[in-house]
């Protein structure tokens, strides 16, 4: 059970071309998406949303060279796509199946972020605080407490920015425990497309002044409600 998830990508990588050809400061973002079977009806909206995210970020040339997206799905936990800067990104296609092992997913995400940060340091590339963007439509089916604690340690240390977005069936109290002090957002009526546009808009300031120090994000108008 403990070893149910696996990382399929080798940890050791040769010095990548992406870090040499593009020395911009990076903003790594892990999209941690629940693709359990209950998501089947919405999976197309999520896939569309990924395309929107890419297309919108491509409008900002500097942001497209700074933001790096990785995709993880849980049910079971898989790294679906490793970090790629948006200007070279082809969003993958997600399919729905399986359970909701959120704890394992978070652990793996933290691990992936460590690996990526080490790669940045190796290449002498500076980076912003990495984002984890968790979207779920249910309650975890595994032990999530240890993972939530580890996430909280990282958040308090200033190591990551944690965002949680839940749909109707999601357990808000659990999400809140993970993303503290940032409250979880409840997604309205499966507005995944709008959610991804909002994500893009929130990432674009990476190319402008005053990004990173204190994130001053817009209200999730039109697609979600903050769960205080």
């Amino acid at each position, binding site marked *: 059970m403990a070893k149910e998830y696996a990382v*399929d*990508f*080798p940890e050791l*990588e*040769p*010095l*990548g*071309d992406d870090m*040499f*050809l*593009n*020395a*911009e*400061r990076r903003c790594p973002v892990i999209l941690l998406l629940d693709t359990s079977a209950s998501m089947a009806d919405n999976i197309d909206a999520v896939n569309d949303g990924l395309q929107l995210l890419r297309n919108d970020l491509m409008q900002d*040339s*500097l942001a497209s*060279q700074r933001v790096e997206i990785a*995709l993880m*799905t849980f049910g079971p936990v*898989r*790294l*679906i*796509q*490793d*970090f*790629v800067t948006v200007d*070279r990104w*082809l969003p*993958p*296609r*997600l*399919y*729905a*199946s399986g359970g909701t092992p959120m704890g394992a997913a978070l652990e793996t995400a933290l691990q992936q972020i460590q690996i990526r*940060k*080490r790669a940045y*340091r*190796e*290449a*002498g*590339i*500076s*980076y912003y605080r990495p984002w984890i963007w968790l979207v779920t439509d249910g309650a975890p089916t595994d032990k999530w407490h240890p993972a939530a604690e580890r996430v909280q340690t990282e958040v308090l240390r200033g*190591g990551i920015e944690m965002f949680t977005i839940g749909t109707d069936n999601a357990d808000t109290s659990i999400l809140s425990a993970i993303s503290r002090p940032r409250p979880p957002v409840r997604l309205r009526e499966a507005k995944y497309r709008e959610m991804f546009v909002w994500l893009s808009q929130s990432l674009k*300031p990476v*190319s*402008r*002044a*005053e*990004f*990173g*120090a204190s994130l001053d994000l817009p209200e999730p108008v039109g697609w979600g409600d903050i769960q205080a």
Partner: protein
Amino acid sequence: MIPSLFGSGVLLAGDRTEYRLGKKIAEGGEGIVYRVEGRDDIVAKIYREFDFTREAKLRGMVARATKRLHRVSAWPLSPLQGPDSKTVGFIMQRLESWQPLHSVYQVKHRLDNYPNRTWAFLVRASRNLAVCVHDLHEADLVLGDVNESNVLVDDRAMVKIIDADSFQIEIDSRLYPCKVGKSELLPPELLGASFKDTRRTQEHDRFSLAILIFQTLVFGRHPFAGRPKKDEELPLEACIQKGYYAYTQQRDVPLGPPPNIDIKFLPEDIRDLFERAFGSDSARRPSANEWFSALKGLEDQLKSCPENSSHKHWMGTGKCPWCEMEERGSFPVFRSSVDIAELPEQSDQLWKEVQDARQNLPLPDQFERPKYQDFQPAELSGPEKFFGKTATRSPIWFWAIFLPMQAVLRGQSPLAASILVLVVLALIPYAFFQARNQLRRRKLLKADAALQKMWLQYGADQSVQTLNRRYEELRDMHEVLNGFDEYVQQARKKALETKYRPQLESFLRKYSLLAADIGPYGREKLSALYDSGYKTAADIGDDKLKFAGGQSSEIRQALMNWRTTLESQFWATSAYSLTASEERQLLNKMRKQALTFRKALQEGPEELRRLSEEAEERRQRLLASSKAYEDELQQWGPSVLAYERMGRR
């Protein structure tokens, strides 16, 4: 009214005239830039939020305008007012084809969009940036927020600074502060400070200027971003705060330069300026004017690499630093420009001569083995025809013998007995004809087999086939020479694919098979493949998938398409190129090949003639030795054929 509600189509009042907002062009942190309808020379910047101090600031700036300020910045031309007379934005010069500094210095972006720019271009852009900052400082301004997005560069490396409205300026002894800044470019003393209460100074600008010059000269690298000596996190802002200049030679810092970057390609005086700019004493930061002089000095000491004319570098380095970087295994940072010495001449004339030669030669392969089947059947004599024909109708013979025999056995009729005798007598000529034909047929088939064997040997003979094969080879060579450009390109593509295979593989490994876009076939198929070891796009290949049992060709095709799409995404940059020496090696090889091909074509007619003569000799020998068999064929063929035809009828 919130100014940001103004959008396309709105009419706003300027100083002398009104302007209608056109299409949105760009969006910044403070405001949005629109085109102005009917005007190609100006644009309008509209603020997102209203600020009552802006009007006085903009009016003061417009009043202060000089030619010099217009040259180095997009200085405000006129404030813009909404219906309630509040200032919501301003008019400035339109800078359409100018690019932000980051797209000038970022390697991949430069190689993709401006492949011909050399390091000399980057030096000139840095120098011009220093001039802009110098002129603004001369006018007692502080830029405050100078960054890679608001420094614009044109095709001739001219530089202009936009967002002039955010400059810190004193008008009528009132200070209008600069309220923005980008933490990566702010000096340590400003990090964490509130811009509202801080008076910005030219010393602050000097720090930002030095960072931008560094990034321009050193391939987009930030001077405070390096490789930590221990495996620890060193956030960029913290490094700036603590003065951890990654390239310093004078101080002990916990981080060093990134792999493959050694700034010894910069002359010492410039490296010194950087040490001063990023050292702890803010008073020692070099002025814009000092940068100008040093960079101008550097320009006088630039030279071209003899190996690659697009490698412009400081002459103080022993070897060309860009070649050295390439040798150390980095990617080519500048396009390799190798003179493609004259393409091989067209080979049309040579080919025509080869064709003529071929046409005038006897065509030995076109004469065929004589076959008796092609002969005219002989005209048989009457009795032969009669008995031959009747012989094929065996039931008549049967009854002709059987019925009289019956009668004789029963002792019924002497007539029957005499008929029987007649019939048996008639059998004698029939047997004779049959036996004679069989004999002839044997002889004929023997001769035929002998001929067949001879022709087979002749066909396999080198000289005949070589002639034909050689002719085809010469045609291929001619086609290569005529489309030599394309041929070289194909060879280059192959060389690139070999060189960058590891990079491609690592790109493909980023994409898990579980998210392959394979249309309607769905996740179960993918999961099954995944579980049998096909984890990522790098595991998909024509040959590899063959062994994944039970996969339909549709799924295989869909997976291949998916991989191909990812591959094109990988190759969608021209940053993956050959170095000058690799390019030269390739061209030399190609050129040698072209010479060989030309020589072969020149010698073609003679060679074909020789081959043809050899073939002709063989042919004569064949004809001589086959003569006896052919005669036999002539002799027996027609009559045997006649019998065959008769039998079939």
